[in-house]
């Protein structure tokens, strides 16, 4: 029903031609090589297979077709997954006529397009995040970890730390493991070294 509505909508645009309409992934994969569209509007949520898989397969087999992802999901994980799989645009299903047409034209001209809400979501996800491993700035240390780290630097044993902070030894061990992971250290010595290097306990 949604696809038919789209067909009517896009059929009204003078510079567009709706050259195919598929209801599921299998149909899409069959039709695309036959009609070779400039732009494919691809729903992520297909009845038989994920749109993600369709995107991946088409990218490999039909590299010239521009893919505009249409989705109900305004989630960063879906957006970046589609981009990584080679989609050139991503718009939400409730996008209006004007914006949708602009998106299709942009893709046809070889540009990329993301609707405003999608861009906002991407912006939000870029902020204040950190992965483990090599980093140029010190990771954020939680209050508890800071206390544990301080006592480790004071040469306290796990038992002593647990007693001082009213924690179980197991919890202290978990904090220690998290500290090792985020400071990229292998043992207590490495932990102390990293703590001094980043001047973690000084502010």
């Amino acid at each position, binding site marked *: *029903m*949604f696809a*038919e*509505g*789209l067909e*009517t*909508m896009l059929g*009204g645009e003078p510079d567009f031609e709706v050259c195919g309409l598929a209801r599921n992934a299998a149909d899409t994969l069959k039709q695309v090589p036959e009609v070779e569209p400039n732009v494919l509007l691809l729903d992520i*949520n297909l009845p038989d297979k*994920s749109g*993600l898989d369709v995107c991946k397969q088409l990218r490999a087999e039909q590299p010239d077709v521009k893919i505009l992802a249409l989705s*109900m*999901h*305004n*989630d*960063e*994980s*879906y957006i970046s*997954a589609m981009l990584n799989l080679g989609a050139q645009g991503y718009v939400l*299903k*409730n996008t*209006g*006529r004007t914006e949708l047409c602009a998106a299709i034209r942009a893709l046809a001209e070889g540009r990329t397009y993301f609707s405003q809400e999608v861009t*906002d*979501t991407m912006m*939000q*996800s870029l*902020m*204040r*995040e*950190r*992965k*483990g491993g090599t980093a140029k700035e010190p*990771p*954020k240390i*939680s*209050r*508890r970890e800071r206390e544990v780290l301080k006592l480790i630097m004071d040469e306290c044993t796990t038992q002593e730390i647990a007693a001082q902070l009213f*924690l*179980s030894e*197991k*919890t202290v061990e*978990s*904090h220690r*493991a*998290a500290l090792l*992971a*985020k400071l990229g250290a292998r043992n207590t010595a490495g932990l102390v070294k990293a703590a001094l290097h980043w001047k973690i306990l000084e502010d």
Partner: protein
Amino acid sequence: MLIWAQPGFEDRLSFEQIQTLLADGISNRDPGKQALGWYKWAIYREQETLNRDSAFQYLARSVDLFLLAGDTTAYHRARAELAIRLPERGMAEDAIEMQQEALDYFRRTQNRRLETLVLAQMAQVYQLQGDTARASALKKAFRDKGLMLQDTFLLITVFLDDVARLQNERNYRDAISLAFRVLELARQSKRHEYGTLAEYQIGYLNKLARDNYMALRFFKRAEASISAAYDPLRRDIYRQLSAVYTELDSLRPALYYATRHIELGDTLLSRDRIATSHRLAAQYGEKERSRQLDELKARQEELELSKRQQRDFFYAILLFFGAIILALFFMVRDYRHRLATNRVIAEQNEKINQQTIRQLEANFRIESMQSMLEGQELERKRIATDLHDSLGGLLAATKIRLENLSGKVPELSRNEEFSKVKDLLNDTIAETRQISRNLQPGSLHQFGLMKAVRDLIVRVRGDGVPTIDFQHFGEFEGIDHTVALNCYRIVQELLQNSIKHAKATEILVQLTRTENELALLVEDNGLGYDPDTVTKGMGTDNLSQRVQFIRGDISIQSAKGQGTSTMVTVPLDSRPPAPGTQVQALSPTS
């Protein structure tokens, strides 16, 4: 007479209250409580599902249990109620005989109230048989006696009956004033649940009388006064509110209440299903546990016996060989030594047995919790998929069509009403997406725990206030789905606590995966609380259940004004508890 003094028998009990009553009765092996529970359950289910067959079976069980409990008054009352469901089974004569017995018993014991109530029940049986003359005579007798006795419950029953009659005759004015009397009576006797019923009734009658403003007022009052969270009446109130708002052309609140109505409908059904599976799991667990307990007890007794026999044997030998004690000194010492060893072994066995009992109890708790949580997730997933796929698809299609329409008819896009409809539709689409996402994190299954948590945080950030830092260390793929889902819910709950309750402005969320452990940390700079005083709250209770379920540990540090730091660690080497066969059959995990 005692049972009538207990609160409950003549109150409209909520779903939760009935469940508690039943669970209490079953676990304490109290037939009286169980009987009352089944009685209430029968009436409740019948009102909700209109299924008289199952009501009949529950009532029959209730009658048996009342007899077992030796409560003759309750026994006759339940039988009189059961009798109402006999004529449709072709047992009309038995029905009247049963009710007559009850009537005689109440007369003999001079219980005027129940005698009067039975008259009303007999009237129903005659009515069902088509003997209208007798039925109305009995009804009149019931009315007269009820009014004479000035008993609140009887009066409420009489008046509600009259309200229904007047409503059928379309005499709304008198019906409303009578419903007001019920409201008054309910207030005086502090039977609030009847008060809510009366308010709903007044609203409904006003709606029938086409006075939508009054109807709205009373439905609103009923909404404010209803206390049970899950109650068919609550659902009816929402439905009526939605209808009245629609009549009044207030579409926004109408949509709101329609949504609540649909939500609650689903919740009621799923709660039922969960409760049933929970109960079955409990019954099964109970049986299994008592069997194992019996076995352990038998083994302990055997041990005890052999210990006693050994001791007797020892003394006999001691007497018999008294003269040659010296010669046998080493032998005896050796024997003593063996005895001591036996005792140590026996003590150890006992300790192990007790440990096994505790372990069994813990497993049983986890199993029933598992079936509940799994049922909940399954239901959430179903509703989310329904909302997302069918409703979401339809709404998106509607929007496209609307756009097409405005393209074809240009003057429409200048029409104010038309653009309002478009705004409303946009809100509806956004709302639907929000509800579906809260119910089931779609990205969890597709992309794993870390990305799902990141989506969650991005969403919360989009809502505004707090600054949220997110850190993750290690690989999060390949984690068991149940563990991942529960971890996601735990983070969701902790975030919500930090924002809603603690009013935090800065939050740190951290996921750490080491070789055999997953650690979740949520730390905020919010109000904080004294963990000792709040641990029993709803939110934290739910939280600790989830943590226990995935065999994790939770550690909360908080103090007033100093923020909260919560860490949950989950071992990854052991899979979640293997469910018992019965439980598995009830909750498909695929």
